[in-house]
């Protein structure tokens, strides 16, 4: 009997082990099936864009809403996403209607780019009620992670670049500094850009406060305003920080017309397609144009938003934690790095 007992005792664990292996095998099959399901699971994501009117310059930086949308189309190619697109048309009411439509279509996630604070609060509330996560772009939505440009940091890069140029090249002179563009624009982003330029300059040239020159958002006016200013500064070196690329090109024209190309340099904001292009386009910021008085333009990468935002969306859809705020990594685009940052494809 003891022997039997021993045998049974031995058999029992064997049976137990077999059962355990069986259960483990079932679990493994189930988990691999679940993994397979997860691999093929596709998500429905809606992107409500700020404004796709071609004439509208997004955040005043020379990009169109169409470029932003296209970046989402391209970035989503290699992701398990079925995208839906809305155009908020720069209209808070339309943004609310679009969000309601996205809710009715039971999307898995809404990416909202809308500048109206009150509408964003309402959108956040509606989506929360519907149990749909929201990812905000550039304008906060209560309770939603935010992907945003860092206007202050971008401005600092421009200010530092100008200041460093002056220290390296005009060390025996005290330059005058101007910030040119739609400086009266009441939006916080423009104010942050101006503040950033000022701070960046102060780091390099502590005693040179910038002078604001208002173009009211018109490049022709920007050229005229700067031309007039240059006429008052005939013996000074001039550092020009422009708030957008159109103003930078206008500033360059003013400097050339005044015959002051040896006295002025310009750093811009945006790095939009009007200042850089492909290998064959020979635009202002180009390796073949290293001598330009436009030293560079700080990139905001609106045309890459899809590539930046959709990975965050994917993390949210997988239930992973994402930072409350993710900021654009702004970089000065110059003749030295333009083709690394924006690889050209106009060659074959």
């Amino acid at each position: 009997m003891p022997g039997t007992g021993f045998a049974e005792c031995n058999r029992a664990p064997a049976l137990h082990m077999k059962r355990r292996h069986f259960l483990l095998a079932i679990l493994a099959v189930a988990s691999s099936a679940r993994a397979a399901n997860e691999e093929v699971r596709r998500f429905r994501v809606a992107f409500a864009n700020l404004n796709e009117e071609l004439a509208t310059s997004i955040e005043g930086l020379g990009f169109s809403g169409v470029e932003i949308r296209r970046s989402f189309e391209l970035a989503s190619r290699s992701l398990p996403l079925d995208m839906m697109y809305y155009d908020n048309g720069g209209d808070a009411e339309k943004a609310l209607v679009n969000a309601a439509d996205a809710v009715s279509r039971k999307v898995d996630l809404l990416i909202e780019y809308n500048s109206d604070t009150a509408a964003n609060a309402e959108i956040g509330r509606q989506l929360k009620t519907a149990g749909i996560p929201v990812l905000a772009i550039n304008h906060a939505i209560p309770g939603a992670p935010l992907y945003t440009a860092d206007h202050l940091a971008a401005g600092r890069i421009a200010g530092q670049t100008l200041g460093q140029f002056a220290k390296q090249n005009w060390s025996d002179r005290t330059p005058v500094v101007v910030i040119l563009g739609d400086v009266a624009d009441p939006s916080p982003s423009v104010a942050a850009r101006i503040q950033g330029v000022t701070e960046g300059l102060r780091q390099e040239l502590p005693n040179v406060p910038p002078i604001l020159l208002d173009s009211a958002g018109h490049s022709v006016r920007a050229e005229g305003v700067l031309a007039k200013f240059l006429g008052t500064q005939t013996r000074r070196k001039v550092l020009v920080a422009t708030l957008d690329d159109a103003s930078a090109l206008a500033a360059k024209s003013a400097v050339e017309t005044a015959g002051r190309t040896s006295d002025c340099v310009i750093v811009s904001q945006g790095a939009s397609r009007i200042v850089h292009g492909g290998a064959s386009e020979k635009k202002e910021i180009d390796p073949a144009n290293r001598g330009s008085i436009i030293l560079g333009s700080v990139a905001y990468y609106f045309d890459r938003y899809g590539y930046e935002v959709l990975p965050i969306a994917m993390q949210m859809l997988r239930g992973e934690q994402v930072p409350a705020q993710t900021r654009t990594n702004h970089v000065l685009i110059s003749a030295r790095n333009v083709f690394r940052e924006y690889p050209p494809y106009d060659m074959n």
Partner: protein
Amino acid sequence: MRYASIVASVILSALALLGNLGVAEAQSDCKTLVKASPFGPDDQVGATNRITPAVTKAAAAEIQTGAVIPMAFNLVDGVPLFGTRFTKTILTSASLVPGGEYGKNKLTYMEDTYLSQSHVGTHIDGMGHIGIMDCYYNQTPMGKFVTQNSIKKLGLENLKTFATRGVIIDMVKVFQDAGKLKTNPACRTPCLDGGTVITEADIQAGLKMYNVTLREGDAVFLHTGWGDLFTQFPAQNATYNKAEPGIGKTAAQWLADQKVVLVGTDTWAVEVIPSEDAMEAFPVHALLLTDNGIHIVENVRTDLIAAEAASSKRASFFLSMTVPKAMGTTGTFINIEAIR
């Protein structure tokens, strides 16, 4: 004196070691950036090494009717090119002028001067075309081998024959069958739209469609329909050049794993444009040419052979394509024909 000579020899040895380290560092850079060739450290031939007599003989079995299908576009002024690139010919025909004939038999002659960039029209990219930094195929530090006029390594003169089997894969049909064809309105016939990524699965579906399996030494051609825009030159040049459908990196790697010798399409770059990763420049070019020595052929006329394959349910053919022995060049326009 003895002490001095020992010190001197130690210093010289140290300098020599430093010198060697410098060389080793330069070489290790290319070893880091580019794969070694499976054909040996001195190889300049690339994937055409795979076209052995046995491969050519097997490919000859594809010739069943003798029908020849053109696969190149006419090279003519106005075809899609970038920037200031051009292709022009200047005709020398002086002897046609009355009284300019030669001899009593009044012989006349003409010849051409080509003024052209080499990568125009239907053309092949050689291994001197694409590198990562100064590192080219087979870890070649190309900076040491360039002159103002040509390259001293990896020129087209090194290539072996392309007498091999060609396989046409009809991506338009694959996408149509999968119900995912998104065409471009400028295409007069169905085409994959610019930016469409062709995956490994798409290629395999296309091969399955005609029950063909790739084998080592094959030349693979993909029909995307985008070439219809090429034929509409100059009206659609901007659309043609702005983007294109094409293979992504995983598909390119899969083709490389099949040990093909050439990938050609009816587009200007073979690979999807814009790229899957916006920060990468021509990653498929680097993968095929630089890492694997697999040639890229662009602006291939694929519509006729795709139609022929559809009607006959046979996707393979004998490839007729020769590359001039133009020493030290990175590419050249070519003619291609499919012999059935």
